[in-house]
């Protein structure tokens, strides 16, 4: 029986070989630029421009990382800018989570006149792309005297319609009996929110925090509009100014690229569950 194989068996095998070949080929193509970044970051610039590119060098040119940290003028401006990126991304992430939970909780668990209207208004902001309002937004923030400040970098992104939607959906199934029991015990509403509701929202909070953090870590357009001084620059601004505009040493460029991606890689490898699975709706949020 098994000696005579039908034609479809061979076709099936052939298809399988092709599928594996295709997947592996695409995988290599996709990973080559990443491999290039990592290898080039450990080479002196002369090696990177050698023809052909030497994929593996025998010694680790760590000076790229040191020079990258020192910055073009040796004043460690890159460290300062990295700190700015962290401050902005962590703050936006923190305040987005807090505000989205409060608002989402209010919309999910309290009945009040106009609640549906409030919800619709908030959802409507998802239709407003950041790119279309960035110029008026820039004028608003400048009029408030917030250009070149952390507050100016953070505040436009704190109210996040997608975040509110996410938290609202998460809180709707939360049992009302638990809330009422706490009320009968005499707990105040803010206290119930803080001690009873919020501690149970872990997964939703993690998802939202990562989405907000990534959006700000990646943000070039808004800092480009409102940051003026070198001290307030974030990493994307640092890279456009010192890596692209004034063409830097190629090895240092890639070392900076690696260092700028480090927080993301750490998040990716530790929290990949929240990182990938829930991203489906993330494109419609601003940032």
């Amino acid at each position, binding site marked *: 029986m098994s000696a005579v194989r039908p034609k479809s068996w061979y076709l099936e095998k052939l298809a399988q070989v092709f599928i594996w070949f295709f997947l592996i080929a695409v995988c290599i193509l996709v990973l080559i630029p990443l491999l290039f970044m990592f290898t080039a970051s450990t080479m002196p610039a002369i090696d990177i421009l050698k023809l052909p590119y030497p994929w593996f060098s025998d010694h680790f040119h760590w000076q790229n990382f040191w020079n990258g940290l020192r910055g073009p003028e040796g004043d460690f401006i890159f460290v300062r800018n990295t700190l700015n990126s962290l401050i902005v991304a962590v703050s936006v992430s923190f305040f987005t989570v807090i505000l989205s939970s409060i608002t989402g909780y209010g919309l999910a668990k309290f009945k009040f006149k106009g609640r549906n209207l409030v919800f619709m208004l908030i959802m409507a902001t998802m239709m407003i792309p950041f790119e279309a309002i960035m110029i008026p937004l820039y004028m608003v923030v400048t009029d408030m005297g917030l250009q070149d400040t952390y507050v100016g970098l953070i505040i436009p992104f704190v109210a996040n319609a997608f975040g509110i939607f996410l938290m609202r959906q998460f809180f709707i199934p939360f049992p009302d009996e638990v809330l009422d029991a706490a009320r009968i015990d005499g707990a105040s509403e803010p206290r119930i929110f803080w001690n009873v509701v919020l501690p149970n929202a872990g997964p939703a909070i993690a998802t939202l925090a990562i989405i907000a953090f990534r959006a700000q870590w990646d943000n070039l*357009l808004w800092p480009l509009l409102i940051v003026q001084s070198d001290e307030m620059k974030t990493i994307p601004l640092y*890279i456009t100014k010192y890596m692209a505009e004034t063409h830097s040493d190629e090895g240092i460029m890639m070392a900076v690229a690696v260092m700028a991606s480090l927080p993301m890689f750490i998040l990716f490898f530790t929290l990949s569950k929240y990182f990938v699975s829930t991203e489906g709706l993330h494109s419609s949020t601003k940032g």
Partner: protein
Amino acid sequence: MRPKQGFSMEQKKARWGWIFVTPALILFSIFSFYPMLNAFYESFHNKNLLSLRPPRYVGWANYTYLFQSKDFLNSVKNTAIFTLGTFIPLLVVSLILAAFIMSIKKFQRFFQMAFYAPAVLSSVVAALIWLLIFDPRGIANQGLNTLFGTSGVNYNWLSKPGMLRLSTIIVYFWKYVGYFTIVFVSGIGSIPHNLHEAALIDGANRWQDFWYITFPLLKPTTLLVSIMAMIQCLKTFSTQYLFITAGAPTRPINVITLNIYYTAIKDHRIGRASAMSILLFLVMFFFTYLQLKVSKTEEVTYM
């Protein structure tokens, strides 16, 4: 006494509801609604960013100017080329990759993670890496020269208009293909198993199973992915901006977002920039509206 207390409890709750949603409403008013209304307002006015003079009403002049401006039409063309050139390959390739991943038994998660890896980088870093790859001495030229058996041919990735456009498309495609693959994988994964089994019992081969079962049922996901990809592409900014600051010619990759930025910040013409913003808004509004409609209907497709 009792019913009255219950009534005031309801009232108290309603008050707390308002207290919980008010901070967000205030922030949205200042940072979303007002700027949106302001963009409409400014688009009918003439205003210089640096002058203190109040905006002057000009009617539709900003819009009529835009539709005659070569610079604006050029950036519409660039955005259209970039969007179509990116989202169609993204859609096709990520669907193929997802179907292939779902058809193998091992390493499914490995391939998903590998394809997704570039999305971990920020757009500026992604563009920076490709800036070196597209260098005349970079590995893009070396790769093509090895492939075609030529030597020393420079494909001018960052200087010839067509190649420059292709370069920005490649960067974007590379960064997002894994993300959309994962969206498709979860779409394929949510198709009930018994449908495939029924098809296989009826004697369908794997190709027929994909073409007659998976693909039609994947239509909502496909629609959702294409709209999401389109919205992403219309918003593109970082790659083009970084390439231009690194010395690439502006004209072929001057997309709308870049044009808005330059018009407002370099030329100080707020009215024109706002009119462009409104046009971009209208296009993206249309697609976002479609996306919301589609994602709402998606859950009930296997009935």
